[in-house]
């Protein structure tokens, strides 16, 4: 598990930080890496895999906010260990700097080096816990103004549309003191669900899956203990049954196929009352990841109809029905459908009164695109029409984000913070969001 070097490169290939831990890899590894990544195969579209080997040196990289986080080693190490480590390093640095980008890196490179020295010693990982690192790291981060940056992390999706959430919260450094004086006591618990659904041509659900994460970011001072209560009817594991016969099990309760937990989580009372207790370390981390294939109600039903209208012409009707409560608003919705290669023209008809909608035919990749800024049940358009294509099109795919809504029905019933005093009442943010991972309707 020895890392030789760690470095961060900008999109242009500039060194932002570079640390050599074992002096085993010849000079020029950053250039070698960058050349390889940039010109992976002649095909410009082929992306380099996260792990490759050049002249006996293994290069691992993850891309975070457009920066390359790279580790090299000559040893046959566990690939997931190194990739996980790179991801963690990025998270630790983000915890410290508040925001992660080239600018914040350059302003804080001494701090970053300080962190790197404590994270890895002679190639061996020492710790990646922001909590632990706090006692070894002394540089104060120079925080850059969050207004100048693009939201990059999953939590940034909360900032779209929903006014009730403080948009800057996710970009605060966990260690820096607020210039205005005392830091705000608050904690964020985000339930993020990515859903994958495949509809058959007749509209039946062929496969459906939810990949969920309960993400936590704590700005509470003094690390108080926290209890999170989940649904009492939560079940884990499907027993001996195959994952494919779940359609027969329309019983009540939330049934997760599987889940895993962060190190800090104690499951002492999880079996009895479905509560997780933990002393959250500083920084952002997943409390729990879960996976569910239990039947759920997809937020959108997609129905596509193709009718041939003449020999070289066809009419496509795409109907989308929203199936979530009326007080919920979905945003940044796009619907895509590949059309046959020989499609020459497409014309659109949107339902009357369709404001904030756009439809387009992308000539280069023969892609039909229909986008909606936002939609709720009332405002949701039912269909639009395309003509002039023949068959061999599809499938229709959708992307969307639905804040304050999750399909699994997994809930944080309460979030209890061990009280330090009667007046101690930190802000608690429990936020839900559903995103399309792969939302496909066959034709």
């Amino acid at each position: 598990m020895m890392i030789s070097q760690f470095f961060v490169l900008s999109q242009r290939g500039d060194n932002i930080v570079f640390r050599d831990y074992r002096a085993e890899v010849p000079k020029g590894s950053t250039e070698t890496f960058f050349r390889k990544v940039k010109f992976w195969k002649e095909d410009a579209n082929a992306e380099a895999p996260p792990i490759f080997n050049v002249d006996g040196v293994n290069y691992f990289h993850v891309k975070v906010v457009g920066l390359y986080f790279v580790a090299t080693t000559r040893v046959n190490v566990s690939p997931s260990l190194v990739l996980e480590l790179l991801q963690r390093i990025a998270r630790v640095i983000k915890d410290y700097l508040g925001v992660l980008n080239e600018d914040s890196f350059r302003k804080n490179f001494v701090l970053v080096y300080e962190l790197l020295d404590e994270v890895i010693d002679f190639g061996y990982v020492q710790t990646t816990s922001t909590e632990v690192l706090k006692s070894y790291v002394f540089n104060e981060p120079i925080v850059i103004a969050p207004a100048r940056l693009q939201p990059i992390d999953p939590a940034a999706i909360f900032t779209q549309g929903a006014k009730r959430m403080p948009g800057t919260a996710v970009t605060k450094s966990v260690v820096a003191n607020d210039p205005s004086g005392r830091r705000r006591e608050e904690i964020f618990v985000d339930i993020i669900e990515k859903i994958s659904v495949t509809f058959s041509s007749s509209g039946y659900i062929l496969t459906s899956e939810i990949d969920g994460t309960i993400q936590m970011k704590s700005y509470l001072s003094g690390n108080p203990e926290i209890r999170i209560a989940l649904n009492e009817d939560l079940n884990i594991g499907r027993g001996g049954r195959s994952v494919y016969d779940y359609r027969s099990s329309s019983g009540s309760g939330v049934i997760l196929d599987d889940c895993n937990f962060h190190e800090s989580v104690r499951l002492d009372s999880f079996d009895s009352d479905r509560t997780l207790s933990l002393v959250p370390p500083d920084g952002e981390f997943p409390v729990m990841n879960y996976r569910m294939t239990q039947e759920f109600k997809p937020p959108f039903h997609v129905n596509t109809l193709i009718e041939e209208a003449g020999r070289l012409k066809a009419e496509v009707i795409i109907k989308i029905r929203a199936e979530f409560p009326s007080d919920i608003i979905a945003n940044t919705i796009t619907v895509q459908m590949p059309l046959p290669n020989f499609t020459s023209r497409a014309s659109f008809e949107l339902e009357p009164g369709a404001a904030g909608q756009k439809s387009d035919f992308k000539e280069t990749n023969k892609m039909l695109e229909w986008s909606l800024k936002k939609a709720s049940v009332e405002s949701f358009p039912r269909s639009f029409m395309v003509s002039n294509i023949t068959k061999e099109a599809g499938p229709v795919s959708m992307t969307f984000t639905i804040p304050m809504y999750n399909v699994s029905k997994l809930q944080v019933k309460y979030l209890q913070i061990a009280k330090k005093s009667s007046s101690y009442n930190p802000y608690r943010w429990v936020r839900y969001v559903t995103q399309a991972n792969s939302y496909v309707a066959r034709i």
Partner: protein
Amino acid sequence: MPPPAASSRYPSPSQPSGKSEVTDLKSQLRQLAGSRAPGVDDSKRDLFKKVISYMTIGIDVSSVFGEMVMCSATSDIVLKKMCYLYVGNYAKGNPDLSLLTINFLQRDCKDEDPMIRGLALRSLCSLRVPNLVEYLLGPLGSGLKDNNSYVRTIAVTGVLKLYHISASTCIDAEFPATLKSLMLHDSDAQVVANCLAALQEIWSLEASHSEEACREKESLLSKPLIYYFLNRIKEFNEWAQCLILELAVKYVPSDSNDIFDIMNLLEDRLQHANGAVVLATVKVFLQLTLSMTDVHQQVYERIKSPLLTLVSSGSPEQSYAILSHLHLLVVLTELCEYAANVDIEIARESIRAVGKIALQQYDVNAIVDRLLQFLEMEKDYVTAETLVLVKDLLRKHPQWSHDCISVVGGISSKNIQEPKAKAALIWMLGEYAQDMSDAPYILENLIENWEEEHSAEVRLHLLTAAMKCFFKRAPETQKSLGIALAAGIADFHQDVHDRALFYYRVLQYDVHVAERVVSPPQQAVSAFADTQSSEIKDRIFDEFNSLSVIYQKPSYMFTDKEHRGPFEFSDELGSTSITPEVSSDIVPAQQFEANDKDLLLSTDEKDDNKGLSSNNGSAYTAPYESSNISSQMQELAISGPAASATTTQSSFDFDDLLGLGLSTAPAPTPSPPLLKLNARAALDPRAFQQKWRQLPISLSQEYSVNPQGIAALTVPQSLIKHMQSHSIHCIASGGQSPNFKFFFFAQKEAEPSDYLTECIINSSSAKAQIKVKADDQSTSQAFATVFETALSKFGMP
């Protein structure tokens, strides 16, 4: 820091050119160095930052070394850290300058602030200046005894750094012993983890030339130590847990209770959010249960869910790593679901994939069941694909014929239109005619419709099947065979015509000869030409949770020997030494570095001398005097009388003809004449390598080894001696219980025609797997017989 030379090649116009700025910095630093004024630390911080930022972008700031060191006399820890960073970067390039720093670093090592003690010690050990190692001993020694765990953690890694600067200094100071005691007694988990990491690295590197180090390395895998770590695994952070799990993978459990104990201890690690921990645990589970087929299968079931969760919860890069592993494990159930898919191509592909797994795998039982279920689905294309698979499966695992035949017999040939599937069905009808009551009649039916059969492949199979059926059930088949031969001879397709004619003539000549030719006793095919070598697959499986899985290559194919990691399996095969056997009266078996890189792949000339000197005491070393050997070989080759006493060419070689359809039917070798081998054969190891690379595997078989043989195998040299007495010479060997690997060669007595054999003996299953490659492939069966006979006598009085 980026190497200055590298980055200065690309000066960006916005960057300062360097010279004047550095001079500026130098004078400013000088001014501050002696100052005790308030606020001076802040100004120093700014200057230090500037220096370091220059250093980062590649400007050479080594000229301010002296000033930096002077300025670092401060209690400001941020300043200290920056200074250490700077010093660490330039010390190696400027040994003279680093002498300057030794003094202040040594002083800081005694600071009352543990943070400064630790940081100074880390910097001191990171200087990497060989002639300064003596200055490290004192601070390291006290660092290991420091009452602060942060300092101890750093000191432990410092010992490893010292080892890499000067191994002898480190060993002579007996630091490893101190680490060992810290590992067992320290209260801080990170100190313990670093001790483990350092000791693993040190002992692995020492093991090549020190018996004691070998023992120490082994002792890391002792039962008490493994349990010591596993019992308290939760005290360690996730990265140290991975280290411990990697160690546990190498542990050889004493019995099944041992295995279950460990699995119970680690069960909850599968629920860890860190994919590295989960994969390391999976590897432990898979390795532990290798010998227990049922439990092993349960493990597969158990790990499926956690791995799938990891795939979906991590970043795309992490998913990539996990998916590469899933690719290796292949979730079979998942694939089977696709067989019922409406998309025909997907269905076909998934059936093919299932079949591929069946041909390579482990749990054939379950797969056969699934395949038979496919047949019952009664969809044309599913049936078609499956039939082809069942045929291949039967060729490899004839023991399943009864289960398969009952199902296959129920399939109406009318429903099968695809030539490949039809051919497969016909092949099975011929092959298993005695078990399928309808076989002659189905064949008769097919033959009657000869004219309508458009595929030459099917017609060829029909001819052969009719022949086979005839040998088994002559009265019922005679008529249709006649029709088939007549139709075949009249066939416009050249191959069909030729085969029919040949069958006809050989039948005329002698029915028994014909039977021997067309329907020899079946021999299981152990490897199909198109599947990836199962050896490589196994190797990759052994290296689960490593880059081997990502690259789909065993580690020796992409890693230098010294970088394979302390406990790599491929190394382990060679970790117990089988000392070169010396027998005086014959040419000694030449042993050499036989890791597979040399044997199979690399044509690069390895530095032989280096191999000799640095690998003393390691596995495969042996004298390697190629010039000497080759001259001996020449001599031998010439001296061999060119008598044609024993040729082993079997009288007829129908390979080609039958190869059209039934290529796997081995060339018949009716009681092969005993092959005479040259007792004084010699082969240059290099020539062996080359041949091993070039020749195809002509035979691959599995033999049982008798218990006496297994018992005698405790001294692997005895097998080498034994085989030599049968004129089969060992060229390389290695391994340890239960897996031993030997490379043998033999030579025909009469002519310089070589047989190369790889022989893997598993002493727990008492099986020997051999792969034979031969110059004269027609005699490899004869050679295998000799080999088997010799092997069967091993251990017998």
